[in-house]
């Protein structure tokens, strides 16, 4: 490609892209780097690592996820659909591999190690799976597989249930719940078929009951959450951090409670922000997350077809619901889960996944010539 075509491409890209959302995403990501910088040194010290170990890693993954974001925001719908089919198959296989590999090693089976980095394939599967669900739901024609005809929605539900079986084996219940929520949202938007909605809710209920009784840690967490006055250690410290911060915070790097939170850089980064920058900054950050959601949804509603609308809005709901669950856990509204705060929390897989999510959203909400925003 010569210089002019690159210029043209980038010019048309910047003209069609949702600049406000892109700006907010970049802003939040850089804020995330700042927060990880203040939150992680105490954790790194505890683990006997270099003080800025997590910061360096976060920076590295941030660059990679920016590359992903840019790449996906350039993609067309067709490329996204093809890519999603390809990558979700690949990540599903990786998930099964990690399950088998770790059942031998007897370790936590969410992770698979690739080139020295441990990745969470389920985290990366999420955006692509939602795109596929949106594609299947948006199809009006029945899909023929061998000599059987399937309605797209039922196929989507079937795929999600089979993926959920693998996720439960891991076990990663919060992700199952989130994915079912997104599917429910997509069904709702595409037009309610009461049978399907109720069957989705029913499947979700069965999964939750099953998980409640079959896995003691889930049972413990929920019973602990409902019946105990004393929350677990991290949540207690998290509430303390909110209190210690007050409205205006103790100042960057001045937090004391954060040093007692073991997951201060990942799942419990929000209380660290609350302690050091205060409740007002917290509210600003949540507002920014909501602005990304509203703005994205607004542009999605102008989409030219159902697939773009369903996948972009589904991904937006995924993004928002993750953020809300993460914050609610730290506020003791929900029981403890392993959900990270997208764009801000430390975590390679989480950052990459968020980059992909945002890239696809930006691509699918691009301005088309002739449509008036």
């Amino acid at each position, binding site marked *: 490609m010569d210089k002019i075509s690159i210029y043209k491409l980038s010019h048309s890209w910047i003209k069609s892209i949702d600049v406000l959302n892109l700006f907010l995403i970049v802003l939040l990501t850089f804020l995330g780097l700042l927060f990880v910088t203040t939150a992680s040194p105490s954790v790194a010290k505890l683990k006997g690592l270099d003080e800025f170990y997590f910061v360096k890693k976060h920076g590295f993954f941030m660059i990679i996820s920016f590359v992903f974001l840019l790449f996906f925001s350039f993609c067309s719908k067709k490329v996204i659909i093809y890519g999603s089919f390809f990558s979700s198959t690949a990540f599903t296989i990786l998930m099964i591999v990690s399950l088998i590999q770790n059942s031998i090693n007897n370790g936590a089976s969410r992770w698979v190690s690739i080139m020295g980095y441990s990745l969470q394939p389920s985290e990366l599967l999420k955006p692509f799976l939602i795109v596929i669900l949106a594609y299947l739901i948006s199809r009006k024609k029945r899909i023929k597989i061998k000599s059987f005809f399937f309605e797209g929605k039922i196929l989507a539900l079937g795929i999600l249930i089979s993926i959920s079986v693998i996720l439960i084996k891991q076990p990663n219940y919060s992700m199952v719940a989130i994915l079912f929520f997104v599917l429910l949202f997509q069904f709702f938007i595409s037009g309610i078929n009461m049978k399907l909605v109720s069957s989705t809710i029913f499947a979700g209920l069965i999964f939750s009951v099953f998980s409640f009784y079959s896995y003691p840690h889930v049972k413990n967490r929920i019973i602990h959450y409902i019946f105990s006055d004393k929350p677990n250690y991290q949540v207690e410290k998290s509430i303390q951090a909110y209190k210690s911060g007050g409205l205006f915070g103790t100042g960057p790097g001045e937090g004391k409670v954060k040093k007692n939170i073991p997951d201060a850089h990942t799942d419990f980064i929000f209380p660290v922000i609350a302690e050091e920058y205060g409740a007002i900054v917290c509210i600003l950050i949540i507002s920014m997350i*909501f602005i990304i959601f509203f703005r994205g949804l607004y542009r999605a509603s102008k989409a030219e077809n159902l697939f773009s609308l369903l996948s972009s809005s589904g991904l937006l709901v995924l993004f928002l619901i993750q953020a809300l669950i993460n914050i609610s856990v730290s506020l003791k509204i929900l029981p403890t889960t392993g959900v990270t705060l997208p764009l801000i929390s430390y975590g390679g897989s989480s950052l990459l996944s968020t980059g992909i999510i945002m890239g696809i959203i930006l691509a699918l909400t691009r301005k088309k010539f002739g449509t008036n925003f």
Partner: protein
Amino acid sequence: MKLFFNPNLKNFSQEKDYENNQIIRRLFLVVFFMTAIGLLIFSKIIEIAMLYEKELVNSSKTKTENNNLFRGVIKDRNGKILASNIFKYKLKAYPRLINDPVLTSEILTQQIPNLDKRRIYNQVSNKSKFEVVILRNITAKKAKYLNSLGIPGLEFFPSIKRFYPQENLTSHIIGHTNKSLIGVNGIEKTFEKKLSSGEDITLSIDIRVQHAIREELVKDFLAFNAKTATAILADLETNEILSMISLPDFNPNLSINPSIYSYRNTATLNLYEMGSTFKIFSLAAGFEFGDVHLNSNFDVSKPLTISRFTIKDYHPQNRVLNTKEVFLKSSNKGASLIALKLGGNNLKNFYSKLGLLDYSSIDIKEKAKPKYPLKWGKIETANLSFGYGISITPIHLVEATSLIFGNFKFENVNLELKAKKRKDKNNFISFTTREKLLYLMEQNVLYGTGKNAFVKGYGIGGKTATAEKVNKNLGGYDKTKLVSSFLSIFPINKPKYICLVLFDEPLLKNTVGYNDGATGGKTAAKTTAKIIKRIAPLLGIEKENTYEDLLVKKGRKGINFASF
């Protein structure tokens, strides 16, 4: 499957506008739902943050009321300081600010003795480190002097440390704190709340008496080569502990290794089968409930066999003994006969009332629960009458004795000084029983096993005890390992103090594994005599001088009347 890879997307424009409107309506519903959740989270954050602002205001008020910057001071009954706070300094160096590491390390090693010059040079010249710690625990004076030398790149950081001026003397009573100034032992732990809020604590301990007793005890502790030694002095009128010593002890000012043996407060933690001192209690029960009198007779010539156990005497007497002789000769058979006459249940009730079956009431956290048989059959009752089969701590023995002989109604043994006036007379046992027991104890020191405790001029009553220790390997009692103790009350005509001296595994001839007769009478009673001789003047006990005492013999020249 072909359809999967042939995305054919229909645009909205090909469909009805109606559906598009529906979708937008549904999107609005979702937006409302999400916004509601968002607002809920907002309110929760604000609520928690505002809540704290209120808490902060409240706590700042209480902070100004009591200044808890410094931990409370611990004093003895005369106001002598036993634990206080001092500033110590930590010397840090900043290698990046030091231009001449050679000179710096040279000056430092000149000024501070025992400093490794090579180590200091390595630390100071290591530019990759931001800061290094050169030395801890520097006194204020030294820190000021070093600071005045003006060496660049050095800085002093003050920190509050707990200081125990009496060192080993109060080690077990006061205990100590950890690095973050939280009490981990003794009084420091028991009164943590008061002390940490800045309140001072005054103890009933008299440090002069404590010192005198410890000095005498240490001499004999070393002479008898004992494993541990304990001495407790308690006031019978107020039930306060005047002195409590456990040997070996430690210096709480030095860093403490909890695994060392001397860390244990043997006076309140170690369980022993006490032996014959229990005869005081079994006789008291006999006098009170068992229709036993001073001249009741007990035949100890025949061997006393209960089921398959035979009870033996340490000093065998093949005749009929009366109660007084049973006590003076410390006859186990006699005591057993009294207890059997009394019955197991009565004895148990009495011991229980004496507090021998539960934790001691002393206000210190380190306590042990006594061990005793669940079923009190005949053999158990016989054994328990002379202090076998029941393990108690030394403080239990003192507590039970002060219950019987205390002048006022017993409440609890305490280490904290309480300015309270007592009115209720002690009616735990009848007056006559108390007098009988005191008479027996006095006679015991004059003519019985406790002869060695006799101090001229001071009326002392007491009871010796020599118990064999249980050896788990042998599966029975080990004759070579003894617990020898002496429990004394003085002045005997007007009881005011109880003193218990106990040696664990004492040896007279310093030969391990051989019973050389280190009985209570030969060890603890002697020590008690020395102790009383020294502390009586401190406690203000009058010496009963006879006419002869007033005469001071002066060489051969004749007799002078010292008082005239």
